[in-house]
């Protein structure tokens, strides 16, 4: 059962990219959980797994295979509708990863206006979805530039350590140079409250910097269980602390937009 024409809120489709130069900081788990929560709130949501490691695809139990591979996605002029797979959750679709995405930089480089390619690929989906979430591979590359151009908001997980904050600062500088600059929001991820530094940074930095979300994602085994259960955390632990944190983060990511009524 579909929920009727998407993007029924009347506004433009929102796109959120989960991006960080570093790997293993919680991009994929955040992308999956935010996508699930947005769909639960009535937003027709598409999650595009751009990472050839295909972790998000795995979590949704979808085969990491796109017919024609990255070549077809990047270079084909046909819309990418047919590559989209429904997940087990109402209102949430997935554009799966493919191992050939590891060559995406090369594929993008061969196109005209290579930094705008993802933006163009996503354009035909505006009628189908209220929200597109991009789960990006960790790197600074042509893919990154595409993502920064295509996204309205870039969410960047930051582990509360000095080096990770420094990396986030580097990202801020990088984003500042992008012509169509997205809104960059950092958020603390994998927060271990037993560590003094974590507690200190999480308490202090969001009050000092407007580009850091107040919502912080704790380091919890419940989140690690996602890979075992192959499901979003709020699906199997909806009342957990972490699920509430993801909910808070979604609200901040969407700029405080209220949930859409289901069926609206």
């Amino acid at each position, binding site marked *: *059962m*579909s929920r*009727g024409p998407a993007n029924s809120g009347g506004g433009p489709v929102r796109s959120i990219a989960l991006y960080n130069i570093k790997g293993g900081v919680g991009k994929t788990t955040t992308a999956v959980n935010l996508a699930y929560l947005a769909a639960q709130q009535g937003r027709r949501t598409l999650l595009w797994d751009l990472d050839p490691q295909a972790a998000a695809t795995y979590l949704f139990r979808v*085969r990491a295979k796109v017919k024609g591979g990255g070549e077809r996605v990047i270079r084909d002029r046909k819309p990418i509708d047919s590559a989209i797979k*429904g997940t087990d959750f109402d209102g949430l679709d997935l554009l799966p990863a493919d191992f050939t995405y590891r060559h995406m930089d090369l594929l993008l480089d061969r196109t005209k206006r290579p930094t705008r390619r993802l933006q163009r690929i996503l354009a035909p989906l505006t009628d189908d979805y209220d929200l597109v979430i991009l789960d990006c591979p960790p790197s600074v590359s042509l893919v990154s530039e595409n993502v920064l151009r295509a996204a309205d908001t870039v969410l960047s997980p930051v582990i509360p350590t000095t080096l990770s904050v420094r990396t986030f600062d580097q990202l801020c500088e990088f984003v500042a140079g992008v012509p169509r600059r997205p809104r960059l929001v950092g958020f603390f991820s994998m927060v271990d409250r037993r560590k003094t530094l974590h507690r200190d940074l999480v308490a202090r930095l969001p009050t000092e910097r407007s580009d850091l979300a107040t919502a912080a994602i704790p380091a919890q085994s419940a989140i690690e269980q996602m890979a075992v259960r*192959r499901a979003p955390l709020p699906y199997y632990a909806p009342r957990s602390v972490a699920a509430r944190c993801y909910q808070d983060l979604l609200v901040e990511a969407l700029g405080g937009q209220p949930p859409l009524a289901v069926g609206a």
Partner: protein
Amino acid sequence: MEPGELLFGPATDPSQVSAALSAHYRVRVERVGAQRWTCLDTADWRLHRAGMTLRDARRARRRELLLTVRGDRAISAAAARVRWPGSVASLPSSPVRERIERPVGMRALLPLAEVDVQSLGFGLLDDDEKTRVRVRVDQQRLAGDRAAALPLRVVITPVRGYERDGRRCAAMLDDAMRTMGDVDTAATAAMVAAGHRPGEPMVAALTLNPAASARASLAAVLRRWSDVIDANRAGVLDDIDIEYLHELRTAVRGTRSLLSLVPDLFSAEQVQGAAREFAWLGRLTTPLRDLDVTMRELAADLARDPDLEPLRAYFAALRRRALQDVRAGLQSPRGVSLTASWRVALDRVARDEASGGGMTGVDVSGDDVPSNDVSGDDVSAHEVSSARTRRVAGELAIAAYRAIVKSAATVSAQTPADELHRLRRRCKRMRYLLDGYASVYPRESHREVLGALTALQDCLGDIQDVDVRRQQLTVAASALADGRLARTAARPAEALLAMGAVRERRLMIDGAARRSLVKRLARFRGAAIQQCIGELAGAPRSGAPA
């Protein structure tokens, strides 16, 4: 069938579906639940004809409208606090409302079947335990007086990107179990079981035998219109939507019109009596119809300008009174007996004709029958007793056409409204003739003439509607000016100005209609339509009436 819908006989056990699925797939039971569906459509099956199925589905405290459009997946919308019968305008804004607004138009949605449903949901999984296809099994039972088991409904919904799996599943179930091939959709089956005939008009269309006696055919046409009046009476009394009254009045006017064109069906005084009674019914319902049209036409103005609220309240009060009058009239002994005695009279004519008899004495009127305009205008009476239907229908078409052409001879864009109203009445007479005898006329010519006539009628209708609206607005403005509307008009000056703006907009419609009228009249009088009229009368393709 709806997309992915398979129907099996009412005796099919849901466990058979479950067993068939389990034999081929890894199956996960996803949900079990009970709900009540109310199948909805208009009295004239507008959704059915548009390939749409609309249900009001209630499950525990949740209530939603489910719309399926042929070939598309269902869409849903919240439906709290909606009552049936109800208009589309009473529904909250939603994609469902947007989709049905145009086909349903001004008709009310009626609850045509209540179905109790026990649903069982399955997910068909792949090796990664990913759901590829969802299958819902609905065990349906018609509720109410005609309670009965309905076909077992199985809906196969592939998850996006797994359409091939959905097709495989449908084929497997089709092979394993016997689907019903003769049922359109589950909703259709429910409405049929509830005693309805989806897609069929309220009163069946009439097919006349061109070789039958003209008298028998005339009686059949009038009998059908009598049935139309009866079929719409309850809808008028219950004020379900304004089309019931429109249909009823169309049949009344058609009856009066044919009686005037062919006055020798019964004796002169009997015909006059019948005409008098139907004229009474027409007069009884005219104020209500005028107000229906007024309120419909002004709906956009009223919604746009809050200063028109006193005008809306004024018309609404008038309408309530007019509805009371119509109810009183229709439920009076005169109103109740009118069509009953008329039906008896017409059935007797039909029997006499079948047995080769002549004119029948019937009493459809009282004793004190004043004369009326039955024999009026320039259409001469026809001896229909011995003539054949085809010939009489042709002669009547020519006569009706000539009457319009003659009446339109001096018409221009400046002709006064009351003079155009006379022309409009002649057009209506021809329209009823073309509608009543449609089945005996050559189809192409009939279509051509009907198209030109309808275009003309639309123009004349617009002009007359503007005239009526102007008169109503003048009366309303007078009421406002002399203080009778003071209670409802907090800002009488603004209300008066807003009414003036409405009047101006109507006058613009009048101007546009008058400009079109001249062109449409020219087309109607032109050689092409003349040739078609000749063909209606039986002339060869190249012929035209003198």
